[in-house]
C-alpha cells in the first residue's frame, strides 16, 4: 500500500563537503542513507528518517543538515499535520499508535511558571565554594518521635529507625528496564549511581548478574509481570520498589516484543527467549489497598526488614488520597510519576492524554500527607519531566525528598528524544538490544557523562541553595515560601500552595 505519510524530516547533504566516508550509511539503523558506487554519491530516503541526528552528529565534515519538512498540509487548527499522519498510519496498518519517551504535548510546565527566592540584606547568602553546603538526603520512613538517652554523658539512640537510603545528591535514575534499554546503558546507570552515592532503578526487567556488584546502589523493581524477581534479586537490592503505574501509561501494562528478548534478557527476566514479555495492567494479586499492604510486608519479610520499600504510582487525579493509602499501607517511599514521564513504548493516545502534571500531583500529595500528619512516615520521590537542576530544586521546595530522572539521564548518554525507542533501533545504542547498535554506547563514556551531569546539577543546586541563605537541602524541602508563581491562576497557586510573584 502506498503510504500517504509525508517525510517528517528533510535530509540535506552538502555534496561539496561530503567525502563519501559512508559513516551516515553505517550509523543509520533506519536505513536512510546509502552509497551508490556507480554514481559515487550518497543518497537519503527521507521517509525513513526519525530525526535522531546520529548521522549529523557523526558526519566528519558537517555535510549533513536534518530539518523539519516545510511541506505542510493546509493550515488547520483541528486537522494538523500530526493528526493526519496518525490517521494515515492507522489506515495503513490497523494498529494502535505507538510511541516512545514522554508526552510531547504542550500541557503547562509549571516548573517554568515558578521562580525561586534569594537572600538580600536581612539574611546573608552563602557561598558554596567557601562554606559547607549539604545535599545529603535520607529516604525512608521517619518516626514521629526520636528518643535519645545518655550513656556516659554521650547521646545514645533509643529509637531504631527503619531502613533508610542515603543519597549524596537528591537525584536518582528512574526505573528503566533491561530490555527497554541496552546492557551498556544499564551498566552506565549503575556505575554512575554508585560513583555519585545515589541510586538507579532496575525497572521491571530484572537485574543482570554482572550488575549485582552495584547492588548497594540499586533499587530493584517488582512489577506486575514479576520478571526476574527471585530471592537473589531481592537480596542484592538496596531498596525495593513496587511498580503500580508509570506516568507515560497510567493504568496499562507493558509489552516487550519477542524480538527484543535475547538470550541474556531471557535469562534475566526468566522467560523463554523470543517470547513477548507482557506485564499485566494491574498486579493480579493487588486489587485493593490491603492487597498492596500485603505485598509491601511480604517484600519486607522476604528481605528481613532490612530494605525500604517504595511504591510507584502514576500521577492521576486522586494521587493525594492514593498516596495517603500507600503510606498507611506501610510504604517507606512513595514515588510519583507525572504525565511527562518517559517510556520505552506506550500507546500514543494514552501517553499524551492520561495522567496529570507532576508539579500538581506532588503539591497535592505533600499537602495531603501533612494535613493527615503522616508526611514523616514516607519519603516522596517525583519523576516525569525533570529537565535540569532548577526543576529539581523547585520539586524539593514543593515537597519532594528527591527526584528520579529518566529522560535526562538518557539524553546525557546521547539520546536525542526522537521517540522511536519502541522500534528497538536506537541509533545511539540506548533503547536497543541489537549488539551492533548497543556497542556504540561505551559504558565508560556513559558513566562519565552521567556522573558529569549529576555533578553539574549538584553544583547548581548548591549555588541556588546558598543564594537562598540555606546550607542544607532539608531546609528547602517543602519550604514553599521560597517559591513564587508567575502567570498562574489563583486555583493553580492554591493547589501548588505558593503565592504569586510580588505577593
Amino acid at each position: 500500500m502506498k503510504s500517504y505519510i509525508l517525510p517528517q524530516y528533510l535530509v540535506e547533504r552538502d555534496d561539496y563537503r561530503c567525502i563519501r566516508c559512508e559513516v551516515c550509511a553505517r550509523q543509520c539503523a533506519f536505513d536512510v542513507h546509502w552509497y551508490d558506487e556507480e554514481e559515487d554519491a550518497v543518497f537519503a530516503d527521507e521517509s525513513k528518517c526519525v530525526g535522531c541526528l546520529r548521522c549529523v552528529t557523526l558526519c566528519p565534515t558537517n555535510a549533513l543538515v536534518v530539518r523539519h519538512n516545510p511541506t505542510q498540509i493546509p493550515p488547520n487548527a483541528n486537522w494538523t499535520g500530526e493528526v493526519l499522519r496518525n490517521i494515515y498510519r492507522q489506515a495503513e496498518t490497523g494498529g494502535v499508535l505507538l510511541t516512545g519517551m514522554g508526552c510531547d504535548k504542550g500541557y503547562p510546565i509549571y516548573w517554568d511558571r515558578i521562580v525561586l527566592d534569594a537572600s538580600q540584606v536581612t539574611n546573608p547568602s552563602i557561598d558554596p565554594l567557601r562554606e559547607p553546603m549539604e545535599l545529603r538526603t535520607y529516604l525512608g520512613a521517619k518516626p514521629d518521635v526520636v528518643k535519645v538517652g545518655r550513656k556516659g554523658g554521650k547521646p545514645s539512640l533509643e529509637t531504631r529507625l527503619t531502613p533508610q537510603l542515603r543519597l549524596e545528591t537528591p537525584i536518582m535514575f528512574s526505573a528503566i528496564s533491561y530490555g527497554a534499554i541496552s546492557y551498556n546503558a544499564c551498566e552506565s546507570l549503575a556505575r554512575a549511581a554508585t560513583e555519585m552515592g545515589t541510586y538507579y532503578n532496575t525497572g521491571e526487567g530484572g537485574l543482570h548478574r554482572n550488575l549485582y556488584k552495584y547492588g548497594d546502589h540499586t533499587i530493584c523493581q517488582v512489577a506486575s509481570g514479576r520478571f526476574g524477581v527471585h530471592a537473589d534479586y531481592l537480596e542484592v537490592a538496596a531498596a525495593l520498589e513496587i511498580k503500580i503505574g508509570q506516568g507515560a501509561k497510567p493504568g496499562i501494562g507493558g509489552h516487550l516484543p519477542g524480538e527484543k528478548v535475547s538470550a541474556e534478557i531471557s535469562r534475566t527476566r526468566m522467560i523463554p527467549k523470543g517470547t513477548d514479555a507482557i506485564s499485566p495492567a494491574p498486579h493480579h494479586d493487588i486489587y485493593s489497598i490491603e492487597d498492596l499492604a500485603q505485598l509491601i510486608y511480604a517484600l519486607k519479610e522476604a528481605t528481613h526488614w532490612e530494605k525500604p520499600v517504595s511504591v510507584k504510582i502514576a500521577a492521576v487525579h486522586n494521587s493525594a488520597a492514593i498516596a495517603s493509602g500507600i503510606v498507611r499501607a506501610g510504604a517507606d517511599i512513595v514515588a510519583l510519576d507525572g504525565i511527562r514521564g518517559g517510556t520505552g513504548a506506550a500507546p500514543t493516545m494514552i501517553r499524551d492524554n492520561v495522567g496529570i502534571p507532576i508539579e500538581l500531583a506532588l503539591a497535592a500529595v505533600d499537602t495531603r500527607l501533612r494535613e493527615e500528619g503522616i508526611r514523616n512516615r514516607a519519603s516522596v520521590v517525583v519523576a516525569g519531566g525533570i529537565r535540569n537542576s532548577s526543576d529539581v530544586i523547585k520539586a524539593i521546595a514543593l515537597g519532594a525528598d528527591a527526584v528520579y530522572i529518566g529522560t535526562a539521564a538518557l539524553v546525557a548518554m546521547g539520546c536525542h528524544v526522537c521517540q522511536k525507542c519502541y522500534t528497538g533501533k536506537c541509533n545511539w545504542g540506548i533503547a536497543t538490544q541489537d549488539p551492533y547498535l548497543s556497542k556504540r554506547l561505551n559504558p565508560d563514556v556513559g558513566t562519565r557523562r552521567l556522573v558529569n551531569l549529576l555533578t553539574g546539577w549538584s553544583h547548581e543546586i548548591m549555588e541556588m541553595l546558598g543564594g537562598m541563605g540555606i546550607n542544607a537541602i532539608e531546609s528547602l524541602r517543602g519550604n514553599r515560601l521560597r517559591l513564587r508563581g508567575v502567570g498562574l491562576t489563583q486555583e493553580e497557586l492554591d493547589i501548588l500552595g505558593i503565592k504569586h510573584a510580588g505577593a
Partner: protein
Amino acid sequence: MLRGARVRDDKDFSGCSIFGMMNLRGEKFNGDPMITAIANMKERSNGLGGGFAAYGIYPQYAELYCFQLMYDDQAAKEETEGYLKDSFSLEGAEVIPTRSCEGVSDPPLLWRYFLQPRESIACDLEDVDDFVVRAVMHINVFIDGAFVFSSGKDMGVFKGVGFPEDVGRFFRLDEYEGYIWVAHGRFPTNTQAWWGGAHPFNILDWSVVHNGEISSYGINMRHLEMYGYKCTLFTDTEVIAYAVDLLVRRHGLSIEDMSRVLAAPLWSEIDRMPAREREAHVALRQSYGSLLLNGPFSIIISNREQMIGLTDRIRLRPLVAGRNGDFMYISSEEAPMHLVDDTLKDTWIPHGGVPVVAELIKPAAREEETGGKVLSISGAEPA
C-alpha cells in the same frame, strides 16, 4: 495597629538585640539592669518592638498558669473570657499595671489571668500542658482581636511597640523580681508594628528572644503544623518556641539534643563521630531535618530552670556569654554585660551551633549534681 490590618509578608524580617541574665541560685533581682543593658544596644533596634520575659515573678500563684493577653477591644476580651471560663477556673484576673511612658503609645488592653483547667476537665486529660497549648492556639487563631502573649507558670512576658527600654518602663519592670530575665530590642524591616509581634515569644514556660532570620521558616512552620502548632504570628521566633516545646516537652529530648536539631552538626562532622554518637546524630538529623533552623540566628531560650544561648551552625549572628559568681549573661554584644556588672571578667564567644546552658542549681541537689562546683554551665570554653 490592628492585627487584621497587618500586611501578610511570608514572615517578619528583623534584626535585633538580645540580652539574658540569670541568677543560678534563683535569687531574684528587679528589671532595672535589663533595661540598662538592652538600652545600651540601641543601634540594634529601631523603636518598633521591645520586650522582656521574667521568671519567678508570681510566687504567690506559682502553680497556676498565667495567661497574659492583649485585646484590641472590649468585645475580644468578653469573648476570650467566656471561652476561658468554659474550661478553666480563673483564680485571678487583673489589668497588667503600666505607667504612661514617652515612646510607647496606643497600647492594647492588657490583662492577665491566673488559671488552671477545671478539675472536671483536668482529670480526663492525658497531658494538661497540651490542653493549655490548644487553648492558647484557639484564642490566637479564632478570637479576633485577642492574643495570648504569655502562658507559663510563675513567669510573664512584657512586650510592645517602642524601644525596649521604654517598653520596660511602661510595664513597670522595676517592680518585678525574677531570677531569669531576657530582653529583646527589635529592628523589623517592615514598618508595621503590632504589639503581639514583639519578642519574647512564649508558649507555656518557654520564651524565646531571637536575632536573625530563619531561611527555613517555611518548612519549619509546615512541620510544626503537623503536630498541631498554628503559626499565627509569621515570625521566626514563634517557630523556634514551638520547635523547642515539641522537642523538649513533648518528645523528651535533652537541651543538648534539642540544640543538635535546631543547629545540627554538619554531616562531615557527624561522619567523624564515634559510632554510638554518630548513630544518634544521624537519626536526629534524619528525623528532625525539617526543624533544622537554617539561616543566621542567635537566640536565648528560657524556661523556669534554664537559660540557653544558641547560634546557627555557621554562626552568622553574634552571641557572647559571661559569668560572674552566681550570675550568668548571654548577649548580642559584650558591652552591656559589663555595664550592668562592673566586676565581670569571664566572658567568651560560644561556638556556632553549640548551646550555652545556664541551669538553676536546685538547693537539695546542688552538691551532687554539680560535683561540688558552684556553677552549672555547659558550653563554656574550657579554661
